[in-house]
């Protein structure tokens, strides 16, 4: 294949590949180094393919890459950080942090694996995970002691192995960290009134995401890093440092910040040079001449990029991988994302083609190697978190392609296509691909995207520029910055390299808020077995605000008013909790390495956690939107319009978990009641009200690092956890069933509430105000493979996506697997190890998810076009 074989808009290419579709059953799915834009990879195959890559090297690496998130715990980082903290006991916290990471970068073990061309690791083996004691060491050691970390009946997936020696070495650090964690600091600032409804209380809202890890959810400014190199960053810091006037108190603080960042910058340079030295050492002992040459090339690249701007595609990609990996070494906040890959890498692509430095095929191979490097990363999670974030791996390494450029023109280029092909060639759940589309996206990109979706690995997700950009503008983001947004983590649009957004920091179960709103602030299952009984229900009190009871309401407006008041009450408490965690991060865990890579921190002389970069948000999510909407709809129709039941009867029915109310349960779940997801204004307008009320009470609240709150409208997978915290609800949910996922319709054990089809779902969902949910929205689609077969299936999927974009939906993700396949995988996991599915915000190996989440995915309405 030569480089000119595939030109994006070549009519000849269309004609040549037309034959592919002549017969639905005869598609050539063999991988090629340069793929035509309309290459088909089959429908619903997911990852179940041996040797998916056209490159022997990539298939070799894949063959030794495990398809699970299990790994080894490594104690080195924890020891090295502790050692540095002990050596600098009295110094400002930011200096301690800088000495800590410098000690790790200088002394943690590093590895270069066979065949690979891109290097960098977390200081431990493939899929190994370091320990971050700053966010709590007790849970790590306790889980090891209690058998909750390694494989057991209690932890069948996402488990971590460790040696006795590792456990002992971590135990030895325990005393030092006792009482010094973010959790200790946060709890000292909170009252029971804030804690009672949180994850630590009755679970109306969760705010714990960043109590046990860093905030993450950002992407660095790659173009700036490429321009400056670490050497340029060092010069910039020195320049600002020299300008400090230490007679001014604020400059003393700035000066300290510059000292800290100089320490981390120099450590980063030395860390990259360690790889150069290792590669040279390995080359000298390497019997295979070709591999020895590759290792020497790796060494030369590392030497160059340790301080200087990259010159070639390979150098730039190496720098991206190393710079990002060091962010994970500094802090365990996840969703460190890879920005607009096809934009910032494009100059290097063109340069290499023009100068003959590299072929398109070789760059394709590098990208595929890079993807596997991302999958190699891993993160230690506790046995509870893995239930809501199963098979997350490092978590949230999003990579964005497509969309408009800063100047407003379409940015699709060859790398857009290569990045998408690379996923089909590796079929692992990393990176989390996002394709930005807009009204003017080229047809070829839509075809490429649709074919990748049809493959069925759950990648990529679709983001709509025509909503995301206005949404960012409404958060005071500048026009050029807004157009240059990337997607971070699961769901969130973010200004690349300029935003510390605290995205996904918590979530509110708005269906639970409705429960408290119609039951005078009491939990519907309030009883003496509740741990809070003595000081709450038992003492004549109630968990929430007294907003009246459905048994007494005389008009539906009273229901809406009660919901509104109850929502404000809980938003106040969630905001309080999140701001306390934010303050704890600033005090205990400044990030002097990340700060050198974020735009503005050096200029402002301020750490990123304290608001050093340009944009500063805090983004919690509303969960259970469909459940709340259908709940309001059922109340209005049954109690006030039809008067089929009284408010008291409806409350009694859910208190009894519908036992003895089978007829009502069937009726509420049937299509006789107005339900969200069927293009029915009655239910859709109430669902919009449920979501808008959440947005209203969260948006623009001031946060602790100099910005304000942004509401999101998605659940990722916490709808399962919130459901487990909630008794039966009026929409027809039984106790402990999941609440509705993301922006999707309700599906209870009885039946799915969306019964009409994909067009009705689309129209219902786009009646909600996506742009207002500035922290992101998500709709999960699930299709049976037969619905997407053939060219007709492909084109109707594209039409669906186009209509979603036209109607201003922000974000969609797709699972393409039949119910039968998923059930078979549950029964026989060993034969479905490679079955990737879209969880929500990310893809994961289906058999590595826990049963509750598997069931939730199976339960999503399967859409069929015929």
């Amino acid at each position: 294949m030569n480089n000119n074989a595939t030109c994006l808009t070549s009519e000849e290419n269309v004609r040549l590949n037309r034959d592919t579709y002549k017969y639905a059953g005869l598609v050539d799915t063999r991988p090629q180094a340069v793929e035509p834009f309309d290459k088909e990879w089959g429908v619903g195959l997911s990852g179940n393919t041996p040797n998916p890559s056209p490159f022997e090297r990539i298939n070799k690496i894949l063959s030794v890459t495990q398809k699970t998130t299990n790994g080894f715990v490594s104690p080195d980082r924890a020891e090295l950080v502790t050692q540095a903290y002990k050596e600098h006991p009295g110094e400002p916290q930011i200096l301690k942090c800088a000495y800590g990471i410098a000690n790790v970068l200088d002394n943690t073990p590093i590895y270069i694996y066979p065949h690979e061309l891109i290097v960098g690791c977390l200081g431990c083996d493939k899929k190994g995970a370091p320990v971050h004691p700053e966010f709590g060491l007790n849970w790590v050691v306790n889980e090891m002691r209690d058998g909750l970390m390694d494989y057991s009946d209690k932890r069948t997936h996402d488990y971590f192995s460790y040696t006795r020696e590792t456990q002992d070495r971590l135990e030895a650090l325990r005393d030092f960290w006792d009482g010094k964690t973010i959790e200790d600091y946060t709890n000292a600032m909170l009252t029971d009134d804030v804690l009672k409804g949180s994850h630590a209380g009755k679970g109306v809202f969760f705010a714990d995401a960043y109590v046990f890890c860093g905030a993450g959810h950002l992407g660095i400014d790659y173009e700036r890093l490429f321009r400056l190199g670490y050497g340029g960053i060092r010069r910039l810091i020195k320049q600002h440092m020299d300008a400090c006037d230490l007679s001014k108190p604020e400059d003393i603080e700035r000066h300290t910040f510059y000292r800290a960042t100089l320490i981390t910058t120099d450590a980063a340079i030395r860390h990259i040079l360690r790889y150069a030295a290792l590669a040279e050492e390995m080359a000298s002992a390497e019997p295979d001449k070709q591999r020895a040459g590759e290792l020497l090339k790796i060494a030369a690249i590392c030497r160059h990029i340790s301080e200087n701007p990259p010159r070639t595609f390979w150098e730039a990609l190496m720098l991206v991988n190393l710079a990002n990996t060091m962010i994970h070494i500094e802090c365990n906040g996840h969703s460190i994302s890879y920005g607009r890959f096809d934009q910032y890498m494009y100059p290097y692509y063109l340069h290499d083609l023009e100068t003959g430095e590299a072929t398109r095929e070789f760059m394709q191979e590098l990208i595929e190697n890079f993807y596997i490097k991302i999958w190699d990363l891993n993160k230690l999670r506790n046995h509870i978190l893995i239930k809501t974030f199963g098979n997350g791996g490092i978590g949230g390494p999003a990579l964005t392609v497509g969309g408009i450029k800063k100047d407003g023109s379409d940015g699709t280029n060859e790398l857009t296509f290569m990045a998408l092909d690379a996923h089909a060639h590796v079929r692992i759940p990393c990176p989390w691909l996002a394709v930005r589309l807009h009204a003017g996206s080229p047809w070829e990109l839509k075809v490429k995207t649709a074919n990748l979706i049809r493959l069925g690995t759950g990648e990529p997700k679709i983001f709509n520029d025509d909503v995301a950009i206005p949404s960012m503008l409404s958060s005071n983001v500048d026009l050029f910055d807004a157009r240059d947004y990337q997607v971070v983590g699961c769901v969130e649009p973010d200004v690349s390299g300029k935003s510390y957004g605290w995205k996904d920091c918590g979530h509110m179960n708005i269906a639970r808020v409705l429960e408290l709103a119609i039951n005078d602030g009491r939990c519907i299952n309030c009883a003496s077995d509740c741990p809070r009984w003595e000081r709450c229900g038992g003492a004549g009190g109630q968990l929430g605000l007294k907003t009246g009871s459905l048994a007494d309401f005389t008009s539906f407006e009273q229901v809406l008013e009660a919901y509104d008041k109850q929502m404000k009450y809980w938003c106040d408490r969630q905001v309080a909790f999140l701001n306390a965690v934010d303050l704890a991060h600033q005090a205990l865990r400044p990030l002097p390495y990340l700060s050198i890579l974020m735009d503005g921190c050096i200029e402002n002389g301020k750490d990123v956690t304290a608001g050093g970069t340009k944009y500063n948000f805090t983004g919690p999510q509303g969960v259970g939107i469909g459940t709340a909407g259908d709940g309001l709809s059922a109340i209005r129709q049954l109690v006030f319009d039809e008067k089929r039941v009284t408010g008291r009867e409806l409350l009694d029915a859910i208190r009894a978990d519908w036992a003895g109310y089978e007829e009502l349960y069937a009726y509420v779940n049937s299509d006789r009641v107005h339900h969200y997801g069927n293009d029915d204004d009655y239910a859709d307008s109430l669902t919009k009200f449920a979501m808008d009320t959440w947005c209203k009470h969260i948006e623009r609240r001031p946060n602790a690092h100099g910005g304000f709150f942004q509401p999101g409208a998605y659940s990722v997978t916490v709808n399962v956890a919130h459901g487990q915290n909630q008794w039966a609800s009026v929409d027809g949910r039984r106790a402990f069933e999941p609440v509705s996922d993301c922006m999707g319709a309700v599906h209870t054990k009885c039946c799915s509430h969306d019964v009409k089809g994909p067009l009705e779902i689309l129209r219902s969902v786009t009646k909600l105000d996506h742009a207002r949910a500035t922290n992101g929205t998500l709709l999960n689609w699930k299709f049976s493979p037969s619905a997407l077969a053939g060219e007709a299936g492909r084109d109707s999927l594209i039409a669906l996506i186009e209509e979603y974009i036209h109607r201003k939906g922000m974000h969609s993700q797709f699972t393409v697997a039949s119910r039968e396949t998923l059930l078979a995988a549950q029964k026989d996991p060993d034969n479905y190890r490679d079955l990737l599915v879209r969880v929500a915000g990310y893809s994961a190996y289906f058999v590595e998810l826990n049963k509750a989440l598997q069931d939730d995915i199976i339960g999503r309405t399967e859409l069929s076009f015929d």
Partner: protein
Amino acid sequence: MLHRNADGAPCALVSNIQRYTIHDGPGVRTELFFTGCTLRCLWCSNPETLRPEVQLGAYPDKCLSLEKCGRCLKVCPEKGAPLQFGDGGIIKAVRENDTCRTCLRCAGECPSRAIRQWGEWMTVDEMLKAVEQDRSFYRRTGGGVTLSGGEVLLQWEAAALLLEACKKAGIHTCVETALNVPTAHMEAVYAFTDLVITDIKHMDTQKHREFTGAGNERILENIRRAVELGKKLVIRTPVVPGYNGDEENIRAIGAFIRDALKGKIVQYQLLPYRRLGLEKYDALGIPYPMGDYQPPERGEWEREITRLVQMLSTEYGIPAAAGSGGKLQL
């Protein structure tokens, strides 16, 4: 005869409106299934469309049981005589003993939709409104409306009115018909029909009668006439191994298309048999006519269809295709 409602508005009896179908005509389509049919194909997957009347269907899985509900019994003017119950609840809702007056009260009352009404009289305006909802999709995909059934041309007058209204609204129209109807009825709708989809189920009229209840003479004559009129035509054969899937029959159809029709069709589609509609047979209390018949393993059978398609293209020079997923070159 054209049916009119109490207000005098023209109506059709429709069993279902399916949105976002992609296999019956180009693009994304809304498909209306008209009730009543002139054939009784053994493999029919829409048994609810056979009888030209409103019917009741029973879904035992959904029934709450007589003990917990029993609303249907309470409202039935025949005291539940047409309804049959087992231990778990309803089993059948049929009118075998002619006691049911199809008042539909039981279906109206059932809270869990265990008793459902199949078929509804809809005015032309109502049908048009349902079709117009998805107009933006038709525009994007070159789609439109498809009238199907049952046999849509049994209600040819209402169909013609609806198709005419759709054409006025700028919507592409397609009619899927078995064409076992008087030629005049067929021609009455053609003025407003952009594409016709029809079947040749067997070339041997005896076998055709055996499998569908009628001979094929009128059907073949109507197909010839359609081509003569210059109608765009898609011909299909639902290929059922052991019934009509033999090479000899497929060759005979290929020869008919090549010789009698001069190959002037849009596409000839071989559709693999699928065992569909069983739950609807159960709900209507009708045995599945094919009994326990199982087609050969799917992969093997699809390869055979692909081979037949190759044969038709190369030896007969006709635009053959496997399945209905390919794009139509209109």
